[in-house]
């Protein structure tokens, strides 16, 4: 079978276009075909990623036969491939989970799966592409598929959340586009490697302004405080599995764009400090606010924002250890937060307001879901032997190496806050009596399977992290080596 990075984007789009017709053949196919597609993407990831890990050279895909910087190119390196793999596996699991998650009519399931495929394709596109404007287009695909997904259910305030997202997302796209315009006006190119190679030719004032604008735009997608007002709303109003999609995919796309810009495209050293400081603020504010949330999904959303802050801190420290920590946290966040979102939506399945107290007593009624939620909670606060621990340990080690003692103390203090609110929920789920009688909805076997796979990943990586360690190191090396990125994408640049 063929494996090509282009298929990450081309096939989901093709399938999305085809799906309405496929639905006319057999109605069940609209659910099955996306699954086949996601399974293929996972195969694609494994095939490509093992190749990249073995050779340590990125796969550069030219599109339309034009070598970069003329044409658009995709860069499948150890770094981007790692994230793409996470996303594709997550997409498969989310698909398995959402298969008949709710009883939806034909039209709605069709739309749901089309949107799911496109949000996946968009996120992977953002990560793989080597072209700044193309990244913008993919970000728009991600955004435009997120808006309807957030507003998917009518009984919730989805439209409100979606509109907020659209409003802030509009700022993001304006800002990114303006930044691209400024860069293009100076360098006449849109290829990231080309821009990176010539960034010092840009006048200082334009460089600063374009950097700031791009930073703002990507930071909105990466859910940096104070730009993340929309995020808790969207997480809490979207269908359950979509929370996992947002945490695991779209937020990853945003943070990827941000770090790619800071690490590769621009050469501002101060940018790392800004990222670090904003990460700290995001972390503290989000976790603090999560402390007294009454809405379960909102609490998870704020916690997710906190994790994004942690991610920003990791990438803001800018050392190899820190980048490894960042990759690990990225992995953890994708897996653990997805597990939490997926399991929590069964805990509060039939509750209207998704309050924490509606999940009380579910430990007895939904034992499997509750224990999976518990594993997620244990993992996210960083208790060994779950995978969350290694991310935290590495982040702390990186901060120690960078002499950021205060940061260590802060991260740990925030972890204590995390313990308080997560354990409160876990205790409630197991030991409190539910006051209101809410009908319990048992997860179907496919949903359980998806959650169990996530939990297994958490435990396996937690016990034996060496399983991904080499990939993380490769990814970190790839991200930090700006020169090799440029030389791989533009092999002729050095000779010219």
């Amino acid at each position: 079978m063929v494996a090509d990075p282009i298929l990450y984007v081309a096939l989901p789009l093709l399938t999305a276009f085809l799906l309405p017709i496929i639905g006319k053949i057999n109605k069940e196919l609209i659910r099955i075909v996306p699954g086949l597609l996601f399974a293929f993407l996972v195969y694609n990831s494994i095939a490509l990623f093992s190749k990249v890990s073995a050779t340590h050279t990125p796969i550069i895909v030219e599109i339309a036969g034009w070598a970069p910087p003329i044409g658009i190119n995709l860069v499948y390196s150890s770094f981007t491939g790692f994230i793409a793999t996470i996303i594709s596996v997550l997409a498969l699991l989310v698909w398995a989970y959402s298969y008949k998650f709710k009883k939806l009519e034909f039209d709605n399931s069709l739309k749901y799966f089309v949107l799911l495929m496109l949000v996946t394709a968009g996120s992977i596109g953002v990560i793989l592409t080597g072209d700044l404007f193309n990244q913008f287009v993919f970000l728009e695909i991600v955004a435009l598929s997120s808006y309807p997904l957030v507003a998917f259910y009518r009984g919730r305030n989805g439209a409100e959340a979606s509109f907020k997202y659209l409003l802030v997302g509009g700022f993001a796209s304006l800002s990114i586009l303006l930044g691209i315009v400024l860069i293009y006006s100076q360098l006449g190119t849109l290829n990231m490697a080309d821009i990176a190679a010539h960034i010092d030719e840009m006048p200082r004032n334009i460089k600063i302004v374009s950097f700031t604008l791009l930073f703002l735009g990507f930071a909105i997608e990466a859910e940096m405080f104070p730009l993340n007002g929309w995020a808790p709303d969207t997480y809490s109003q979207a269908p359950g599995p979509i929370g996992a999609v947002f945490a695991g995919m779209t937020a990853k796309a945003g943070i990827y764009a941000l770090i790619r810009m800071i690490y590769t495209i621009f050469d501002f050293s101060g940018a790392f400090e800004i990222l670090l400081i904003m990460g700290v603020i995001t972390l503290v504010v989000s976790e603090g606010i999560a402390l007294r949330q009454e809405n379960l999904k909102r609490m998870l959303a704020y916690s997710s924002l906190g994790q994004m802050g942690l991610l920003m801190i990791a990438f803001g420290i800018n050392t190899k250890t820190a980048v490894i920590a960042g990759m690990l946290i990225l992995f953890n966040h994708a897996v653990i937060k997805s597990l939490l979102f997926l399991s929590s939506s069964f805990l509060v399945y039939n509750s209207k307001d998704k309050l924490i107290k509606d999940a009380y007593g579910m430990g007895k009624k939904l034992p499997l879901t509750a224990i999976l939620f518990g594993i997620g909670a244990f993992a996210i606060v960083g208790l060994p032997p779950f995978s969350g621990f290694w991310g935290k340990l590495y982040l702390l080690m990186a901060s120690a190496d960078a002499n950021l003692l205060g940061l260590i103390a802060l991260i740990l203090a925030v972890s204590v806050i995390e313990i308080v609110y997560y354990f409160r929920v876990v205790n409630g789920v197991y030991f409190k009596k539910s006051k209101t009688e809410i009908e319990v909805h048992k997860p179907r076997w496919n949903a359980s399977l998806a959650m169990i796979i996530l939990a297994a990943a958490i435990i396996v990586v937690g016990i034996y992290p060496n399983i991904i360690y080499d990939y993380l190191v490769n990814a970190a090396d790839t991200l930090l080596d700006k020169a090799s990125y440029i030389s791989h994408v533009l092999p002729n640049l050095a000779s010219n």
Partner: protein
Amino acid sequence: MSNIIIILAIFGWAILTYIAFRLNKTLGNIFVGLIAVALPVYYFTYVPEDYSFQVMGLTLQFGFTSFSSLFAILVVILGALTLLYSIPYMNKKDRLGWFYLNFLFSIGGMLGILMSKDFVSLFIFWEIMTWSSYLIVIFSGKKVNKVGVKYMVYSAIGAYAMLMAIVLINKWSGTTNISHFFETFADYSNGAKILSSLLLLTAFAVKSALMPLHVWAPNAYTNSPMSYTSLFSGALSKMGIYGMALVAIMLYTNTGMKFFGEALAWLGAITAVLATFWAVFQTDIRKLLAYSSIGQLGYIAVGLGIGTELGVMAALFLALLHGLFKGILFMAAGAIEYRTGKTDFSELRGLIWKMPVTFFSALVAIIALAGMPPLSGLISKWLIYEALLSSEHYFLIILIFLSSTAAFLYCFHFLYGVFLGQREDDIEDVKEAPALMLVPMVLMSFGLLALGTFPGLIFKHISSSMSYLGFNDVTWEMSVLTNEWGNKIYLTHLNTMFMVVFAVFFVIITLVARKKTRRVGTKDIANAGEPILAEDNYHFSQDFYKPFWRVISPVMKYRIETFYNSFANGIGEFFQFFRRVYTGNGQTYALYVVIFLTILFIVGATLI
């Protein structure tokens, strides 16, 4: 390899036990019994071997040291006995698989801690121990947030202090290896020395419930099933002592760091005094024992803190002893709870004839705790006093003396309140606890007796761990105590003498007093014609030490817990207020974007 295998085997067995309990209760109990037997057998027969491997670029090293095997003996013995004890004790409860899963995980965690030769694996097992014990603390489902989360939060504060220390040590020493840390510690800058030892001390102080970080302990000890509390208080809290002793080495070897030792000793003494006072006024057996535990751990901290050879030896000895006698006492409390369903002093009395074996074990443990001959408590007290005297900590002696005296009060309260006095009707048909519960208690009380006469049995181990800690080998004799002025006390003689006196006294008392007693009902008290009201103090267990309470209550009303609570509330309230940043208005969010952009422009223009 064999080292880490034992831990993995325990974890694996834990999961098997869980599955077994899901299938069949009897099968599960058999599994528990098997591991309880296998654990000591395996531990005392296997050949220690070091093992290390790479995880995430960090080297994890395992292997017992002479020091850690001292604690491992305690963990293995106490773990096996509590497991045996648990089988009948927990039999009527639900979710047994879950209970034993966590029970075995915490035993495995403790052994893991003792096996770890580097800080990262120490931390991993520390956390495994913490969360498994947390899951048992909330096992009963009562007060899960108030007690459970509080325990977890304090543990987390401790654990995270350790984590911070670990990453800093990794930076300063280059590795996380524990002995390498000790070797390089001398090269640290002063700030680094102070910071790392402070953090590590905090970490271990939390687990060993040293004031002011003890707040979690009384409730956590009370809330978990008694069979686990024996292990919790007996062995798990000793992990804090283990770590503290490790850290203390650096403090001793560095003259500039003496201050920490002093502070530790003082904190220990204060803990001993206050916790003992608190224990005196408890009306619940479990609470009493919990506070008593904290007090005893305070003693140990004193010994470690003064840091002389004798002090450390005393501390280690007491640590082991405390594991035994507190294990017995919590088991006894559990047995009483198992048979009567009651733990409050006002509802219990006169169980001596109903539960004689329990009484015997508890008596032995109490005597050991109070530090009277013929039991080993005497030796530990002796050692501590001598250590304090020889290192000229006179004020600490006063504190320790005060606390020892007060300890007699609660010892008496416990014995009298539970076993002596007259039975109520509702506990008239109480039977002795099941044999499987008695066996561990009796075994341990024999152990205490043996150690009381022949402390040399364990001093062999202690002296080899002392040499690991950097002291010279301690000279010891099998059953002779010596002080630095050359006096010798032959314990066998002393104990025989004591036994004889006691036996004679007992016979005389029995003969003389037996005839004169007249049995009356418990409600039959002289009240001079006044009707007894509910608020009247008509039961001896009520306000047992009221006069004493009057004296010290002004001091006791300041509780550090209130301060912590208001601090936590303050944080909560602050963020509650801060939540209003998320106004819910999309336009405000858009405005934040522009504000952020403006700031970024200004910052970018000036800084970048």
